[in-house]
């Protein structure tokens, strides 16, 4: 049974989005994703300042059995990345929604936030897999 916090928004490609008070968002991958990947050995986050388009492949998570692309859920500019993941990628497995956050970015188009799935919507997506 996968953990899907109600307060977050989700992309079909298994990223979660958390809206911050200052209008930026935090992005990571879901519990379902980290579980499917297995033990992570390497995480590559997008460069600071990079301008992302919605759906653009911008990060990589590599586990013992697969290397997966991570996609920007919405358009924006990368403002911060989680540097602890470089030496401790396993944090993404143990705490995907909090300490395992991947990057923070601005929101270019607020409308794109509306189109993201809520917890119930994401739960339907993974149930259908």
């Amino acid at each position, binding site marked *: 049974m996968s953990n899907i916090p109600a307060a977050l928004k989700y992309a079909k490609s298994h990223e979660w989005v958390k809206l911050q008070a200052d209008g930026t968002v935090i992005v990571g991958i879901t519990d379902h994703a980290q579980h499917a990947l297995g033990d992570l050995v*390497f995480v*590559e986050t997008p*460069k600071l300042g990079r301008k992302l388009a919605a759906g653009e492949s911008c990060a*990589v998570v*590599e586990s013992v059995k*697969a*290397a997966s*692309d991570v996609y920007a859920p919405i358009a924006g500019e990368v403002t911060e990345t989680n540097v602890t993941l470089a030496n401790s990628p396993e944090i993404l497995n143990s705490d995907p929604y909090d300490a395992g956050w991947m990057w923070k970015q601005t929101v270019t188009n607020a409308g794109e936030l509306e189109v993201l799935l809520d917890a119930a919507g994401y739960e339907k997506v993974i149930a259908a897999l």
Partner: protein
Amino acid sequence: MPFIPHTDTDVKEMLAAIGAPSIDALFGEIPPELQCKGLTQVPEGLSEMAVSQLLRGRAAEDRMALNFIGAGAYEHHIPAAVWELTTRGEFYSAYTPYQAEASQGTLTVLYEYQTMMTELTGMEVSNASLYDGASALAEALLMAVRANPTNQSGKVLVPKTLHPFYGEVVNSITHAQGIRQAAIDYDAKTGKTSLESLKAYEGVKPTAVVIAQPNFFGVLEDVDALTDWAHAQGALVVAVVNPTSLALLKPPSEWGAKGADIVCGDGQPLGAPLASGGPYYGFLTCKMPYVRQMPGRIIGRTVDLDGNPGFTLTLQAREQHIRRSKATSNICTNQGLLVTASTIYMSLLGPDGLAKVATASMANTAALVAKLTQIPGVSVVFDTPRFHEAVIRLPKPVAPVLEALANEGVLGGFDLSRHNPELGQALLVCATETKSEAQLDRYADTLRRVLAA
């Protein structure tokens, strides 16, 4: 007799099973104008006996001339044990023996090779080899573009003292990926890359700077100054080195204040015979932070389920069978046999033996240059410290002189007039540890006669 195991009955049964009237019908979708209707220009086959006699006769025409050509491939003595072991069936005919469950022996040898290359170059990690030195340099530059966080221009500074074939190969491989080479002039007097000409590139923010040591002319470059300049510009330093020279010279990890970032070159001098140009192999080593950008196979040491030590291919997510178009390179192989030979060669010689080979080669080249410059009209071009090659100037055009020397059984050197016309009638000569004093004298005497004629 064709080496196809199917009998006519087998073929008929297979065609019937798939419902095809004939084998030719299976190729029916190829337009008739593109189909080859038999090989009309290939003569009838000969028997094994006839072929053996024909080729033995041809081989006898090889007069085993005395070789003084270097220019990127060097004749060194290879102890008999090297190829005696390397041609064992377990090494020689094994196909892609990289599965951890079946090939621990091969993987162990490759791990030893990687270890030796990191020790020679002073780097922290090595891959299991690439095709050759030139393509290794191309891969190193593509790597630098991916790995350099500050300068992403794709502009690469390449000295004019780099082997001309390497420059051409780099261009072929990298041009379509946006890498642009800018050539750095060398000092006409010393044959070294000139710091003066580098000044013109300040502010350009090059992604990488290539430093060849020794350079194509055999000359030793000011690697410290070049490395520090490159790093000050935000560029990564890609070193192209002769592995034998590393037995005597300080490793690229000690160049300048921070050392080179990526080191590559051709491993031919370490146990691969000249063999008309190949196969050789390229080595590629780097500092640990760049390992994920390094292409090629990498062998890692690990433990199995029971805690026993073992070896396996590692960091495979760089490679195309996992990352496809996002892989670090399209290369998916290495030169396992040549690398096996090199590892045995390096094991037999050890660091002391390799240093002796390097020293003897330098001494022989110095002796050769001294003898040749006694001949009227022959002079040395760069009076600068060199490894085991030197550029000499002849009083006559080089090509006819080389032909005359060859007719007397002496391969005099590499004609520089094609790639370096600015040097005039210049010849690149090389004498390794394989040459005796008598052989050096023979070259000098023959050249004296040829020039006097």
